[in-house]
């Protein structure tokens, strides 16, 4: 369970938000919305531990995430604006290397199977720079399939995806939640996940 208490965020001279409180439990997800520049991405980077916390506390099962270190990083899967793909490497290589850096061994066959699930069968050996934006995003999202992390933090995961891929991602999220996972997702459009209503969290300009 992730608990956020009295969280504040300052960027330069501006205070983006303060006194933010929320919690997320197993089998639940939060739909984070708000205008551009209210601090959605900053909040997500704080939640995964990339950005320092100005004030307040983020706790994972009651322990501040600062003191958890690697244990917390093992529990989180983050997908940011960037796809974290190497343009020169093939989709398969990107998947294997990305998993290996996170400490998970993924063979070529396993990687191909995951790529087939995101609809990229037959493109495993193509350097990523030849793929379209939507296809690159799918390769990036394949990270969710090998990740063993219970908490998914996804920043605009639906951008550049076609309807089929959106449906696939919604189903994947539903399965993750059904298995006891949690997710925090930002998106500008409505997201419906079968059998699960989102907690709505809307950041407003202070």
């Amino acid at each position, binding site marked *: 369970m992730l608990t956020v208490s009295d969280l504040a965020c300052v960027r330069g001279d501006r205070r983006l938000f303060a006194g933010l409180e929320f919690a997320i439990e197993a089998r639940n997800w939060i739909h984070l919305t708000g205008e551009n520049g209210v601090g959605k991405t900053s909040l997500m980077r704080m939640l*995964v*531990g*990339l*950005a*320092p916390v100005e004030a307040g506390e983020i706790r994972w099962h009651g322990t501040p995430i600062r003191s958890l270190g*690697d*244990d917390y*990083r*093992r529990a*989180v899967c*983050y997908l*940011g*604006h*960037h*796809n*974290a*793909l*190497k*343009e*020169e*490497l093939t989709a398969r*290589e990107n998947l294997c*290397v*990305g998993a*290996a*850096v*996170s*400490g*998970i*061994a993924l063979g070529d066959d396993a990687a191909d199977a995951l790529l087939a699930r995101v609809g990229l069968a037959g493109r495993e050996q193509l*350097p990523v720079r030849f793929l379209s934006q939507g296809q690159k995003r799918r390769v990036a999202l394949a990270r969710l399939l090998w990740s063993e992390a219970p908490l998914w933090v996804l920043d605009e995961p639906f951008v550049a995806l076609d309807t089929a891929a959106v449906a696939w991602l919604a189903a994947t999220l539903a399965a993750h939640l059904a298995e006891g996972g949690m997710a925090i997702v930002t998106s500008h459009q409505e997201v419906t996940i079968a059998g699960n209503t989102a907690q709505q969290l809307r950041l407003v300009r202070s």
Partner: protein
Amino acid sequence: MSAFSVFLAVVRRDLLVALRRKSEVLTSLFFFVIVVSLFPLGIGPEMDLLRKIAPGVLWVAALLATMLSLNRLFANDHADGSLEQMALAPVPLGLLVGGKIFAHWLVSGLPLVLIAPVLGIQFDLGSRALGVLMLSLLLGTPLLSLIGAIGAALTLGVRGGGVLVSLLTLPLYVPALIFGAGAVEADISGMGAAGHLSLLGGLLALAVFFAPWATTGALKIALE
């Protein structure tokens, strides 16, 4: 998976990327070859003089060639989000950074070591001096990659980072230059290079210990 296999995964990835982008790798090697070959043209073909300046010329050219390749050490990973994922990996970031530095040395330092004897022949160095030259570069180029990584991480995403990285790292390269070029010189003048080489090795050991740590700190600042 053990920490060491994660280290190897990073090395393997960076080597694969470098293999697919050969032109960038070859640029700094050719730069090294051309700079060294230009010196006789600027100074004159007297072999006595060339033999005397050879260690310094080769070492300064190696410093500059390393500088040339430093900018891409972290910049691409920063731009495409890989660095964020590395920071979020459940292993110490210093280990991954160490892997990147090692890969950087394999791609931009090791070729210099291997080509150096060919260039040394242009300067009429004897076979023993060539051996010492290779040994000094073998100990010295990893040192250049390690110290350079700190500068590259500090200037990540900073205005005019390319020029700034030279200003930050070149003064720190002074001991490596002195002991590296000094080893070859000492060998030529018959004083024996052992002292210089062991000091160079000592500095390398120190840098292996400290540099990834400082680089990690600088990268975390850049990621905030």
